[in-house]
């Protein structure tokens, strides 16, 4: 099986190149296993990875034109030649390793934490199972970045548009019955860019390795804004 990977090491390379490796496929092989096999052949090849089971969100890459998590992408689902590139639109640090600073900054900027003004009760803040269900499909985000780096609006305006991952989390807190900063959160999302650059292209939904739906979350935020008459 041939796997072609993007190579760029600023210490030695003037410009990036693609390099092809021969990898012997085995039963149940994931793309991450194939990349590890390449690393065995050539230790200078760099990519991030850790848990190997799709929960830590380290090994997002672009394979055959689509963003995915390498550790839960079976190679049998990929057509040859397998072409692996870093996430599009992000500065490359080395090989498949990209600079995710802007992505994390957008996440931090939506105040991704529970805000409550009431004094805390002695025990848990009560929440009904139905209210808790509202958080399903939101809290599971692993911040891998597959969605935001597949989003054309984020490619154009990564400093101004929050991007699908951050907006999914914005909705996660708006949807939480325990949170008491609804107006503050909605006010902060106002304006032409932060939220409204989403043109429902839905690349985010297509690539999310956890099956989450940022486009729907963005729609719910917009609905809430209308409701609140902003």
């Amino acid at each position, binding site marked *: 099986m041939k796997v072609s990977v993007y190579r760029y090491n600023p210490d030695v390379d003037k410009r990036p190149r693609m390099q092809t490796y021969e990898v012997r496929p085995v039963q*149940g092989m994931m793309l991450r296993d194939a990349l590890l096999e390449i690393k065995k052949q050539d230790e200078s090849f760099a990519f991030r990875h850790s848990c190997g089971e799709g929960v830590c969100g*380290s090994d997002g890459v672009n394979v055959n034109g689509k963003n995915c998590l390498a550790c839960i992408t079976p190679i049998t689902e990929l057509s040859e030649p397998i072409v692996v590139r870093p996430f599009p639109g992000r500065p490359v*640090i080395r090989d498949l*390793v990209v600079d995710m600073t802007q992505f994390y900054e957008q996440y931090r900027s939506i105040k991704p934490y529970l805000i409550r003004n009431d004094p805390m009760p002695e025990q*848990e803040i009560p929440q009904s199972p139905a209210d808790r269900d509202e958080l399903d499909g939101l809290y599971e985000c692993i*911040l891998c970045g597959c969605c935001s780096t597949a989003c054309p609006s984020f490619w154009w305006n990564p400093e101004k548009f929050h991007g699908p991952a951050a907006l999914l989390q914005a909705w996660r807190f708006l949807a939480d019955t325990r949170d008491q900063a609804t107006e503050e959160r909605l006010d902060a999302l106002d304006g032409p860019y932060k939220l409204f650059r989403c043109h429902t292209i839905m690349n985010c939904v297509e690539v999310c390795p956890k099956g989450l739906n940022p486009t729907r979350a963005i729609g719910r935020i917009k609905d809430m804004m209308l409701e609140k008459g902003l």
Partner: protein
Amino acid sequence: MSIPTRHFDALIIGAGGAGLNAALQLASADVHVAVVSKVFPTRSHTVAAQGGVNAALANVLPDNWHWHMFDTVKGSDYLGDQDAIEFMCREAIPTVYELEHAGVPFSRLDNGKIYQRPFGGQSQDFGGDQAARTCAAADRTGHAILHTLYQQNIRARTHFFDEFFALDLVRDKEGAICGALVLEIETGEPILIEATAILLATGGCGQIFRTTSNAHINTGDGCAMTLRAGVPLMDMEFYQFHPTGIAGKGMLITEGVRGEGGFLVNKDGERFMERYAPRAKDLASRDVVARSIVTEVKEGRGAGENGDYIYLKLEHLGANVIEKRLPGIRESSRIFAGADPVSQPIPVFPTAHYQMGGIPTDRFGRVVIPAKYGAEEAVAGLYAAGECACASVHGANRLGGNSLLDILVFGRLAGKDIIEYVRTNHSRRETDPVSLEQAMARLTRWDHTGEGVPAHQLRAAFRKCMEDHAGVFRTEEVMAEGYKKLGELRECFKDARLGDQSKVFNTARIEALELENLIDVGLAVAVSALHRKESRGAHSRPDYPKRDDVNWMKHSLYYRDGDRIDYKPVRTKPLTVESFPPKERTY
């Protein structure tokens, strides 16, 4: 040697649950704190914890912290320190409420309270009926907690050094530990971080074994740094093999599956746990279940083509329960085992999972060593919390749901203790150039080129050797041979070479640095295991099948220098209640 230097009141190494909970206490108290992590914080392995965190909230069944304490002492096979265990079980309750207030999306009961599920080794009324003590966010509790703690640290404006690798601790001229030399992975440049207090929260070392539920990053870095600083590691022979890893792969299938009603069967479809643990059955302690599975396979009752695994059945729970309570497991099983648990059993086998031992600490997270005079003394300014530390609350075997609890309780307490420590210890200590040079040597030794074993080959050989010689069942013969081989590999390490000498994001270099840690910590496990001539908790010796409280109810201490072993007594006296004397342990 001129190395850029930064100063903080407190330095935390590791950004999992323990590190982040400590950081949150410190940043909220306006202590100038830095967190160094070799990965972006939410990639830390706490994220992979599934089933939940224990606290006697009594939301589902009657419960109290004293029963929780009994279960934990019994689960530890009476090797846990009862003062620390009492402390943890009492603190569990406010700790879980605090997490909920911080935003953790726990699953809920109809009355709006936190959902709790039964887990292994839990009982009501000191060994009575099954309890339901594990607070869960579906089967993604670790993810929910880690992300919440990171989010709260964003609010508290904690200073993070993301993707910085800690090379070694450094000392001042008086010999006091005063900081750490760290490597910025992106640039390949070292920087020195000096601090009044240092907390090691670097997690476990599952990567010493070939088949493990642990992530690539779990290489025992903090434990190895401590060993190199001359501090012993405690109870390292007690390594937990989780009963249900996906066969041949090692990914974790939470005990919560059995807590929700799933059970194990052999190739004949027999619920074999009824034979090994007539009362608790599939919810016996992890060491018991792991041994039972290995025994079934060894005696020819394993399933599959090679008879090398058994089945975990949960079809009878129905698609609704599986989707609601165990969605992550369903996903993992489909992806890695090719089996949808709604209609097919999951092939499982024990997988290396958790180190009960670690850096010896008291219940405030202070690292303690045997004193010249008296029992023990704290190492000034050095703290440890989480899986890398040993308080000791897990003794010889950890109960499911107590690891998230351990990291949260002791991370929080260490944070609070550090606040006091830095307020009373102002004087800035300067790093001794000799100490700095020693730490730098760990990095520069990889600059040597020429002939030698590639580091990655040595890593694979070492992990295989650990798996073959320090697994679920251990005999003198197998372990002695293993120790010899590991010693040879440690010698080989001196000639290990790195081919790629580049600086920017050189992951091969990081892995080579981790290899040194794996070797140090792996030897600690192997040597401690070889010395302990009894069976207790996870340390199971067919040649010494009984627990021996007369000679062996004591903690091991392993020193790197000369592979030396020492011992210290178990603390059997709790803080406020009666001691639980050792009893035969049956489930």
